[in-house]
């Protein structure tokens, strides 16, 4: 990540706000799952420590003031050797006529020297997850950690479950790590001569590339949105109709772009699994896990986007169409193997270990329980005076949140227009 970006704020976010465009409509305020957004003085403001880059706000913004900042393709040319690590949802963006292999080849024509696919290592990832689950019998359920928005959601809203997150690099990070060493050895290149870029379907993956959680080493050099290169790929592929050079592809692993397939593959006689997708469904499930109501599951796959990565907001294709394409590709293509044993050995040697993840406690009103209680009393008092409509017009997501904002000195009670109107009406009568 660029130094300039780093200095500006403590937390990096792919989701950004264009204040000029913002009309202060409060739609984003109400959909944010971590209550990270407020509208103040007619403009939205994102609390950097609460934002998890789930992009719910981007989806509802009517004027495109909220947008996702990904890295430009031109960044790859800063490097001598360029590797694209592609998300399994990439192939699902192209119709059957174009085909999986042509879509991959197009990336080479965009300027990449080599391609690695998330789909290459899904089998061994499942082995690794099973091994991790069996070696951590005290942690149930183990929660998937390959969706960065989910990792951040747990850190922000469910601090007691941070230790349940699978503490192993995500498949795309494993690939990046493995390939940097491999390319450096095979091509005799210095590590910083190799540019590793993820081709991703969601904003939180961009955030994770620039500000990874738990990783010991910076693994990637950038993240490019699928939607940003889509039209270029479409142009290039037309010229590739007669290109019959062979390219390795790993179709069987593509299914992990669909929610539930990972859980299915990890499941075993001794491992019960569950899969949940869509941020609000995930929040419900995490709340149940927190109350120990789902201890019977050994592994729970959690995905921010409905339907899984095919539902990512940086995809071009409709998620349901994309999912059906993937199922077709997987059925048609023969399985190709990579050296799973070698990957598993690396895992066993600790090559993919991550640092213990830390909660980001933003829920409490005060660091000290006594002060928090005093504040809570005030919150309840103020809440009684508010209409309880949760209309969001004040710029806070709910009446309760407004009461908290008032107590924290960030709003005033007159921000509630409904209350003012009612007082005025009472006076008139």
């Amino acid at each position, binding site marked *: 990540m660029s130094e300039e970006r780093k200095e500006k704020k403590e937390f990096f976010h792919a989701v950004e706000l264009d204040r000029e465009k913002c009309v202060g409509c409060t739609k984003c305020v109400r959909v944010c799952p971590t209550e990270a957004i407020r509208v103040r003085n007619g403009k939205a403001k994102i609390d950097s420590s609460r934002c998890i880059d789930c992009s719910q706000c981007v989806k509802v913004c009517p004027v495109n003031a909220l947008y996702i900042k990904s890295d430009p393709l031109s960044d790859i040319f800063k490097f001598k050797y360029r590797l694209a690590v592609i998300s399994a949802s990439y192939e699902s963006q192209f119709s059957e006529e174009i085909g999986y292999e042509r879509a991959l080849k197009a990336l080479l024509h965009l300027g990449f020297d080599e391609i690695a696919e998330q789909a290459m290592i899904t089998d061994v990832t499942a082995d690794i997850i099973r091994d991790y689950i069996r070696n951590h019998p005290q942690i149930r359920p183990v929660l998937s950690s390959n969706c960065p928005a989910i990792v951040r959601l747990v850190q922000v809203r469910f*601090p*007691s479950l941070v230790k349940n997150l699978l503490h192993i690099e995500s498949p795309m990070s494993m690939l990046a790590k493995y390939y940097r060493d491999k390319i450096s050895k095979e091509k005799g290149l210095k590590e910083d001569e190799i540019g590793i870029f993820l081709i991703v379907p969601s904003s939180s993956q961009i955030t994770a590339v620039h500000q990874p959680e738990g990783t010991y080493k910076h693994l990637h050099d950038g993240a490019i949105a699928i939607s940003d290169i889509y039209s270029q790929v479409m142009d290039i592929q037309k010229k590739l109709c007669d290109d019959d050079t062979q390219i390795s592809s790993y179709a069987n692993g593509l299914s992990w772009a669909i929610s539930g397939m990972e859980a299915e593959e990890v499941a075993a006689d001794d491992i019960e699994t569950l899969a949940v997708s869509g941020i609000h469904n995930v929040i419900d499930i995490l*709340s149940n896990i*927190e*109350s*120990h*109501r789902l201890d019977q599951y050994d592994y729970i796959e959690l995905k921010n986007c409905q339907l899984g990565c095919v539902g990512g907001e940086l995809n071009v294709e409709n998620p349901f169409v994309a999912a059906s394409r993937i199922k077709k590709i997987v059925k048609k293509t023969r399985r190709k193997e990579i050296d799973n044993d070698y990957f598993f050995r690396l895992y066993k040697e600790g090559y993919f270990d991550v640092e213990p993840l830390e*909660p980001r*406690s933003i*829920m*409490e*009103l*005060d*660091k*000290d*329980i*006594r002060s*928090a*209680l005093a504040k*809570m*009393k005030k919150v*309840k008092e103020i809440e009684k005076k508010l209409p309880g409509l949760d209309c969001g017009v004040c710029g806070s997501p709910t009446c309760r949140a407004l009461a*908290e904002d008032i107590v924290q000195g960030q709003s005033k009670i007159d921000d509630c227009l409904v209350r003012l109107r009612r007082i005025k009406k009472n006076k008139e009568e």
Partner: protein
Amino acid sequence: MGSEAAKSDNYAEYWACSPALESRGKVLVTNPPEPEMQLDFTIEAKDYIKTGRASSEIKLFLKKLGVNPDVLRRVAVACYEAEINVTAHSNGGTVQALIYQDYILAIFEDKGPGIEDIEQAMIPGFSTADELAREMGFGAGLGLPNIKKNSDLLYIKSAVGINTYLAVIILFEDKQDV
């Protein structure tokens, strides 16, 4: 956790208490001091859709206070199990969550029909749950044992044909006297 049970003609009582609360636990329940804050909820009988909301609200409240996450999970389990008990086994009732600086006292009071034999109900696996409750995935006979396991104090007073009163205390700091 030490426990004792007592029976009279009219009602039965059950106490279980961690060493941290041995000296003062009973007083805190039978004659509770003025709480810092109080949350009140009603629980409808057999409403398996809405049940769990009171314990969720209590959990959220304690999160805002910054209560230790592991303690929070214990409160969540104890309150949820108690709430389910009221839903599944009683004719409905209420929850009062009394919040103090160092602990929470949650009181579940229902409108009957009362527990026949409390000591039996405390045995893991013992259940009187009806078919509906079992279909909903409850009734494994772990409710009361789970409440006991997760609380620093559990008090049950029940009169057959009348009602059940269940109180739990959970300390915000582990193993510290109030």
